[in-house]
């Protein structure tokens, strides 16, 4: 008799501070139980270069702030069955989107960071992905199936959502999730 196939899970880190991934790891010993049921096929904490095909669940931390991230998100969406926005940056834009209140905020932040505030060799880098005019929550670019708000979302909440999904139930966020 073969063991039941494990659920293929991935986690992705876009424009965020990694706090959501820290919270994911804060599930502590529950990760051991989780590891019985899932296989982590792609993650900043796993050494996998290319986002694989046929992923069951992907949790994405961070907003989309540049063209490379937008491209990555579209690839992830195409290869994932259930896509989850993990944390406030992915859900609302949050701190990443603070720049959105300024017109042409892509140029404005680069000018501010690399020219006005620079003491030495003031120049805007050209060999990095182009910033989008605004930072966006994930669901403004692709279809998102579930949302886990919070800055960061508590480990208990991440565990609740994953446990419900693994049991084949839709999580109910009423009274459970909190922005900020």
């Amino acid at each position, binding site marked *: 008799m073969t063991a039941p196939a494990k659920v293929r899970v991935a986690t992705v880190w876009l424009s965020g501070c990694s706090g959501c991934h820290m919270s994911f790891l804060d599930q502590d010993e529950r990760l051991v139980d989780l590891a019985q049921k899932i296989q982590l096929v792609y993650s900043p904490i796993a050494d996998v270069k290319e986002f694989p095909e046929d992923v069951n669940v992907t949790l994405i931390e961070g907003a989309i702030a540049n063209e490379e991230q937008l491209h990555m998100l579209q690839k992830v969406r195409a290869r994932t069955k259930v896509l989850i*926005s993990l944390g*406030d940056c992915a*859900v*609302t*834009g*949050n*701190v990443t*989107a*603070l720049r*959105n*209140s*300024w017109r042409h905020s892509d140029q404005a932040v680069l000018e501010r960071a690399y020219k006005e505030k620079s003491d030495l060799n003031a120049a805007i880098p050209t060999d990095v992905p182009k910033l989008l005019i*605004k930072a966006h*929550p994930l*669901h*403004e670019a692709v279809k*998102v199936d*579930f*949302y*886990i*708000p919070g*800055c960061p979302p508590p480990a208990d909440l991440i565990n609740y959502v994953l446990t419900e999904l693994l049991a084949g139930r839709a999580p*109910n*966020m*009423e*009274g*459970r*999730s*909190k*922005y*900020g």
Partner: protein
Amino acid sequence: MIVSSVKLKIDGVEVSVPEGTTILKAAKDNGIIIPTLCNMDGLIPYGGCRMCLVEISGSPKLFPACTTPVGPEMQVTTVSDRLKEHRKMVVQMLLAERTHICAVCVANDHCELQALANHLGVDHVMFERNWSNDQIDLTHDFLVIDRNRCILCTRCIRICDQIEGVHTLDLKLRGKDAQVIMDLDEHWANSCSCTSCRKCAKACPVGAIYIESEPIEHTKRKDIAEFILDRRNRK
């Protein structure tokens, strides 16, 4: 004067309240809590946020519980799928209208809008956000207004007018452009009518008006208008 009482049903429970009572108060006095945002006990109801809308059987319309008086034989519904969807929509529109970023807000964890989003399960906003860049006034010695966090509930304006009695605060413009202003749109430090009484900061349900260097949980006080009126009446 004898006030006659009115019998009605709220969520199937028969209640009896004095004539002229609002649906909101009738519900509250009988242990039924209807979610509110612009309402503040002790202030004249405004009916602006539409959070407290309820169903009254016989009408396809929804009614704001805070401004609608009870009527005889009325059958009021405060909980339904339709109302829940409606309330979630109101929270989403408020979150989209201005720049609400809980993680960097002074009122984080002490905000009525944030609490309602949590309570109703508003785990994302379906509308594209406006990302407002409205004026922040830091000129006053200790009172601050960040208009990007304002939800236009007018609690600050009403408490300034109806309780403090000076009417420093008011609104200019309409719709999403509306702004809370001091006197004839002066900087706060230049307002000649403001008594610096802090009631506006106490009444603000979000992080729009706050007191610099005071923990927000010490500032916010939802019963402030009712409390002051009660003390006055005891004199």
